[in-house]
């Protein structure tokens, strides 16, 4: 342990500094009181371009991404690089969509995607399904942030679960106190550290390893030597469809996650969001460079830490830093990853808490809850969510939470017809949407259940690449399971809508008006209408 002393000291100092900021954040741009979801859960809905850039960037590009994406390249090669096209496609794809969501949410005081579905389709049942989907998809995501911290702690030789619990308890305390202001303020430090560490890494490490060219040659040699058919430093004939559908499916899913919506809704106006759609790809560049760390680890001959006979691939990047950097800078790099876990974990738990408060508590338990009661319930729910995430990590194999995250992506995609298409049209009937959601969810689970992964010795839930051969097609090609499930969802929603119309089933009331989707800051109607809809 003593050999890592410098690293531990640097890590601890930076970690404590940032935690202090989290508590102070409650006073930042202080409103008269924090006792409403607009303030606690959305930071006052007043964030400008810069804060939104740091906040959403810190929210979408998580510690887990920084650890797991290079680990994927280290293990499987080119297929892991899908994370780059995924984050390139997502911004132009949702550019016109999220500004509509921002506008309608500000006119009607909406806080969550399920709130929107409630107002748009007048269906508490559909809104509840959307809320539960969001909650289930977010939980393992929070747990995975812990995996990021755990990988760093392991590399510093810190064992045991207590440090992890302490780190999360501190996080829980300042999120409770400061709400969304805490991660917004911490994101500045987190991202600055990450940018510095990665720029140094991609400039310095290749000079130690004989240049970029030889790094790729080492990766190529490694994959050519392995018998596994799916890996390689380029794509092969069978995994290109999977690569493309996974990138597109993930891009469509990204802004359906409740925590992404939270970041977007906290923006001051539409211009802030549009400018960020051009500025956020700076993080994609960072992500692309980080991914290449996986190949640098191959070239440097780094081996993941093995515990209990099982190698933990997530320790590859921390191990690479340890091998390449002087101790003090390794400490900075570890702190960047550790703090990088705190920002998204905070935003995700706030988003999950808001879902619970708005779409379960207020809808089903206490209709007449005041703003202050909503905020109080959300604060407690955010604690419960974090305790749940810690339990997930302590009680079950981390590999299992990675599988849960995979399932999360597939299921959150099933909210696209209600939330994404709903922003444009309410032609789909609420009954059809509920049927589509159910069918898409069932199809997705069935496919995931039938995906085996021999590398991790899993017979089921072994990945997201569904072999088309299982559908009777004579091919070795694979496709992203979420993509197929969404197709099933859409077809059933369409047919269900036609049936519902033919049977003259009641349509829900639409509380929104066409002009609501274009409202902007300064409009008289922004903020002055409360959620109305049929009960």
């Amino acid at each position: 342990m003593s050999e890592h002393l410098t690293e531990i000291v640097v890590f601890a100092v930076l970690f404590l500094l940032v935690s202090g900021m989290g508590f102070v954040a409650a006073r930042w741009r202080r409103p008269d009181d924090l006792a409403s979801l607009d303030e606690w859960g959305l930071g006052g809905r007043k964030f400008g371009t810069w804060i939104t850039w740091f906040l959403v960037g810190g929210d979408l590009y998580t510690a887990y991404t920084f650890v797991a994406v290079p680990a994927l390249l280290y293990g499987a090669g080119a297929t892991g690089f899908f994370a780059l096209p995924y984050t390139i496609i997502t911004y132009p794809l949702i550019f016109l969509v999220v500004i509509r969501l921002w506008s309608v949410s500000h006119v009607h005081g909406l806080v969550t995607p399920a709130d929107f579905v409630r107002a748009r389709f007048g269906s508490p049942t559909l809104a509840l399904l959307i809320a539960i989907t969001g909650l289930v998809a977010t939980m393992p995501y929070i747990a995975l942030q812990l995996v990021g911290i755990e990988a760093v702690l392991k590399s510093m030789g810190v064992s045991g679960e207590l440090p992890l619990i302490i780190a999360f308890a501190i996080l829980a305390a300042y999120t409770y106190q400061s709400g969304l202001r805490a991660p917004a303020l911490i994101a500045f430090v987190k991202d600055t550290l990450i940018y510095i560490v990665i720029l140094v890494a991609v400039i310095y490490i290749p000079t130690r390893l004989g240049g970029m060219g030889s790094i790729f040659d080492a990766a190529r040699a490694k994959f050519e030597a392995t018998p596994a058919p799916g890996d390689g430093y380029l794509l092969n004939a069978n995994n290109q469809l999977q690569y493309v559908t996974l990138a597109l499916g993930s891009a469509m899913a990204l802004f359906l996650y409740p925590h992404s919506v939270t970041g977007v809704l906290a923006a001051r106006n539409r211009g802030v969001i549009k400018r960020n759609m051009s500025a956020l790809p700076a993080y994609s560049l960072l992500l692309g460079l980080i991914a290449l760390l996986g190949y640098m680890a191959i070239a440097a001959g780094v081996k993941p830490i093995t515990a209990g006979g099982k190698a933990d691939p997530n320790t590859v990047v921390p191990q690479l830093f340890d091998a390449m950097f002087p101790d003090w800078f390794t400490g900075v790099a570890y702190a960047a990853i550790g703090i990088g876990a705190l920002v998204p974990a905070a935003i995700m738990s706030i988003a999950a808490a808001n879902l619970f408060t708005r779409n379960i508590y207020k809808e089903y338990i206490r209709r007449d809850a005041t703003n202050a009661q909503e905020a109080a319930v959300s604060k407690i729910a955010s604690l419960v969510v974090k305790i749940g995430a810690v339990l997930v990590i302590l009680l079950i194999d981390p590999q299992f939470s990675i599988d849960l995250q995979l399932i999360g992506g597939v299921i959150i995609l099933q909210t696209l017809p209600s939330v994404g298409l709903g922003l444009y049209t309410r032609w789909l009937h609420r009954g059809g949407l509920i049927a589509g959601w159910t069918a898409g969810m069932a199809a997705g689970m069935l496919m995931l259940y039938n995906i085996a992964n021999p590398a991790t010795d899993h017979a089921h839930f072994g990945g997201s690449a569904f072999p088309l051969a299982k559908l009777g097609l004579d091919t070795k090609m694979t496709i992203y399971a979420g993509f197929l499930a969404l197709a099933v969802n859409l077809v059933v929603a369409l047919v269900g809508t036609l049936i519902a119309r033919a049977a003259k089933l009641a349509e829900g009331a639409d509380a929104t008006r066409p002009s609501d989707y274009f409202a902007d800051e300064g409009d008289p109607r922004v903020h002055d209408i409360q959620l109305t809809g049929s009960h």
Partner: protein
Amino acid sequence: MTTPPSDQRPARSDRSPWNWLLLVPIVIPLITAVYNADEPRLFGLPLFYWAQLAFIILGVASTTIVYQVGKRRNGR
């Protein structure tokens, strides 16, 4: 029932032929045949890697153009 009262005409709109530009950075990264190769290399990076990094520029350019054009049209 389904038609909300429309006492206010849509004062603004997001419609613009320039929006089609957004399709470029969505479609091109999805055509793997364009970039799934080793040669030519750039600074030692195989085409597969540097081409996809370069697509970031496409994304930034198209969203910036659409934003700027929209800002002028709406006069804000």
